[in-house]
Structures are given as C-alpha cells and as structure tokens.
C-alpha cells in the first residue's frame, strides 16, 4: 500500500474511532478507576516537560522580541507580544506537541502491547467493549489535562518573559504584568483554551487508533509508537491552522 493508501487508512480509521469514542464518552458506564489512572499519568507526568518548555520558550521569545522591537525603540511592548504569542499560539501548540509526543506515544505503546499480547481480544471475549474500556478513559483524561497543562504553560512562559523583561531589559515587574493583563482579551483566552481541547481529543484518538492497529509483536508496537508521534505532530500543526483561521473568521 502506497503513501496515499496509508494516509487514507489512517484518516478513515482515526475518524471512525473518534466517532465511536464520542458516542460512548457521554453515556454510562465510565471506567472511573482507569480514567483516574490516566489523569495521573497524562497530566501530572507531563507537568515538568510542558513547564520547562514553556519557561524557556517565554524567555527566548522575550529575547527575540526585545531584539526586534529594539530597532524601533519599542522594547516596552515585550510583555504584550510575549503574552499574545504564548496564549493564542505557542502555549497551546507547544504543549500539544510535547504532550502529544509523550502521551500519544505512551498510549500507542501501551495499547499496542495489549493488542499484540491478545489483551484487547481478551476484553472483547469477556463481552466488554475495548473502546469504552481503553479509548474513552484516555480521551477524557487527555481532554481534561491538556487545557490545564496549557494554562500552566502559558503562566510559565509569561513568567519566563518577565524574567528577561525585568533582569535584562530593566522593566518593572508591575509594569510588565499590567501590560500583559491589559492586552489579553476574553477572545485570546477562549482561543487559547479551545485549541488544547481539540488537540487533546486528536492526540488521544490517534494514539489509541495506532495502538489498537499494532500487529506482529515488539516490532509492530515500535512502528505504531513512532508513527503516532509523526501523525500527531503533523495533525496538531494542520488543525492549528484551521482552528486559528476559523476563530479569526468568527
């Protein structure tokens, strides 16, 4: 099967699983134990990764902004640029890419191992539904945790910008935070939170789909895992464009 066939199969499979998951997410029963386990693994386990990424991204963004705005004598606006860039774009996308790599691959590896050792068939043979037992808890956990991780990442990024603004550019912390608070509107926050919800759904479903499709032992699980990271990264960037375009048009 060529590249196009593989792409169509992936899109078709992920779409079908997404519909199956949506149909079960809002109906009982929810596997509460598994959902709590996934909340811990997905959320708490990703905290350091996303916060460190955001902190240094905020600092680099502030450095670059200061350099660019310095040419026009407008260094006072560092706070605004850093806050807008982080909340509307970089916070959601970078967090999704980081969590997507870590969590998506983890989901694919775990479910893939279950698939190749017949554990998924075992669920089916005991008259249980693998989508309800495996996919729905992971989707809920990712959808619940990614927006929270993104809010924290935004905060860390703004803090990183603040450090540069204060210690390198000589701005007062109060002034920096006031400018940041003034520039952010409800629309920015809404866009910054809507994106992670959609990215989370994508990350979890793509990870689950590739895990459930894994065949042929450890090699198959390895391929499913690397493929998941690749598909998630591309999907997040493509969806980011369309979501941004949609929100700007509204």
């Amino acid at each position, binding site marked *: 099967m060529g590249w196009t066939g593989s792409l169509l199969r992936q899109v078709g499979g992920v779409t079908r699983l997404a519909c199956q998951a949506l149909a079960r997410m809002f109906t009982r029963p929810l596997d509460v134990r598994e959902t709590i386990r996934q909340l811990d693994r997905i959320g708490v386990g990703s905290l350091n990764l996303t916060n460190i990424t955001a902190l240094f991204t905020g600092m680099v963004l502030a450095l670059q902004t200061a350099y660019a705005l310095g040419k026009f004598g407008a260094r006072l606006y560092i706070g605004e640029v850093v806050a807008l860039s982080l909340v509307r774009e970089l916070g959601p996308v970078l967090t999704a890419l980081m969590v997507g790599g870590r969590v998506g691959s983890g989901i694919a590896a775990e479910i893939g191992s*279950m698939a190749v050792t017949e554990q998924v068939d*075992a669920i089916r*043979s*005991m008259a249980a*539904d693998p989508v309800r037992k495996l996919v729905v808890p992971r989707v809920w956990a990712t959808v619940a945790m990614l927006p929270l991780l993104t809010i924290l990442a935004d905060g860390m990024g703004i803090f990183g910008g603040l450090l540069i603004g204060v210690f390198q550019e000589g701005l007062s912390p109060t002034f920096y935070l006031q400018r940041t608070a003034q520039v952010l509107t409800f629309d920015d926050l809404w866009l910054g939170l809507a994106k992670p919800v959609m990215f989370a759904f994508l990350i979890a479903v793509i990870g689950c789909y590739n895990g459930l499709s894994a065949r042929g032992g450890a090699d198959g699980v390895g391929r499913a895992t690397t493929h998941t990271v690749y598909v998630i990264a591309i999907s997040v960037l493509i969806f980011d464009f369309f979501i941004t375009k949609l929100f700007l048009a509204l």
Partner: protein
Amino acid sequence: MSEPVILLHDVTKSFGAKHVLRGVSLEIERGATVALLGASGSGKSVTLKTVNGLVPPDRGEITVLGYPVSTMSEAALTPLRRRVSYLFQGGALFDSMSVFDNVAYPLREHDRLEPAELRERVDELLAMVRLEDVGSLQPSELSGGMRKRVAVARALALEPEIMLYDEPTTGLDPVTGGAIADLIVDLDRRFGVTSLVVTHDIPLVVRVAERVVFLHDGEFIFSGSVEAARREAPDPVREFFAAGGIHA
C-alpha cells in the same frame, strides 16, 4: 445424541493470499470435549476465534448456542460471549491490574456483586486453580504456569457453557499441565461444559478429548475418536500422534 452447540458450516477464511480455512464444517454436541489438532500455523487458533466472533469468517455460517455468530455485530455478540469463555495461549492477563482485579474483571463487568461477595467469588476461583494468596500480585510477578492458571480462573468466572482453550498446556511443566487437564475433565463432568481445545499436547488430548478433529491445509481431514485417530486416520494425523509418543 445431544444437540449441537457449536456449528461451523462451509467456513472460509483467508489473510491476504494465505487461505487458512477452505470451507470447513464441524458440529460439537453439548457437553463434548473436542481436541482440534494441526501443525503450527495451520489455522487452529483462527478457527477457535471464529467461534466467539473474534475473527469473522470470509464465508460460511457459524452458529453457537443458537446465535448466528457469523452475521452478528460486535455489540450483538455480548450475550453470547457471556456464555462462551476463551483461554488465550499466553493468558492475556491485563498487565496493569493485580491478579485479583484480573479475575474480578468479568464479574465487575457483568455481575453486580457486593465487595465481600466479589472477594469470596474470586478467592473461590483462584482456589479452583490451586492458587491462593496471589491476589495482590501483579501478573509480571507470576511464573508462566501461574499466569495460565490465573487466566483459567478468569475464564471460569462467568460460569461458561462453552470453553475455548488455545493451547492450554503449552509452556507448562508436566505437573501444572496435568492440573489443567484435570480441570478440563472436571468442568466437563461436574458442570457439563462443552470444550474445544486447540493443542499440540498429545497426552492432554488422550486425557481429555472424546473426539479429535485434525486441520491440514485449511481442511478438516479427520474427525473421530482418539482411538480411531491413532489407528485409522490419514498419515498426517497418525504421524502427529506418533510424534507425541502415542503409536497405533
């Protein structure tokens, strides 16, 4: 003669260019224990998986306990799968759960038991496979034989009418393998459970099976008693028995 509870009629299954089943037919009566033999990769496990709908056939009819398995959706198979248990070759225990939770899984899924009742039932099931005090362990802490016995306990949790065994004694020492054989015989005698056993283990076949079916090149080339299999069956079957130490 008792009613057939498993019926395969003209079942065909291929994976790409590999034809695994070429129009096979089989009838198994209630309470019977049938051994399904054949070389590795001959399609025995695929046959077993078609019986409870884990693998859909390309063509043909499969009827189990009156349910037309081959034409049913995954959701519609739920009531049938409560009555048909499957013992997977590697046990297929859930790595992320303790032994207790593995055995309790089908009970939590289908029976609304109080915690005390659940514990009592799980302890009883583990005692049946001679495994006490392992409930809190993870599957990774168990030996291969113990894992398989836990899988048997889990498979018995819903008191199935039909048991499908995929190589139940592979990788086990003779004593543990003998215990599994005892259990299969016991389930048949005490509860009238119908069993379809996929295996390469000829002593197990001799011990538990009333009938032997032999799969060769996608077809059942022999169906008859163990005695007939040793004496009158086509060459591949007799060779199989001879290699297992049972000569005509």
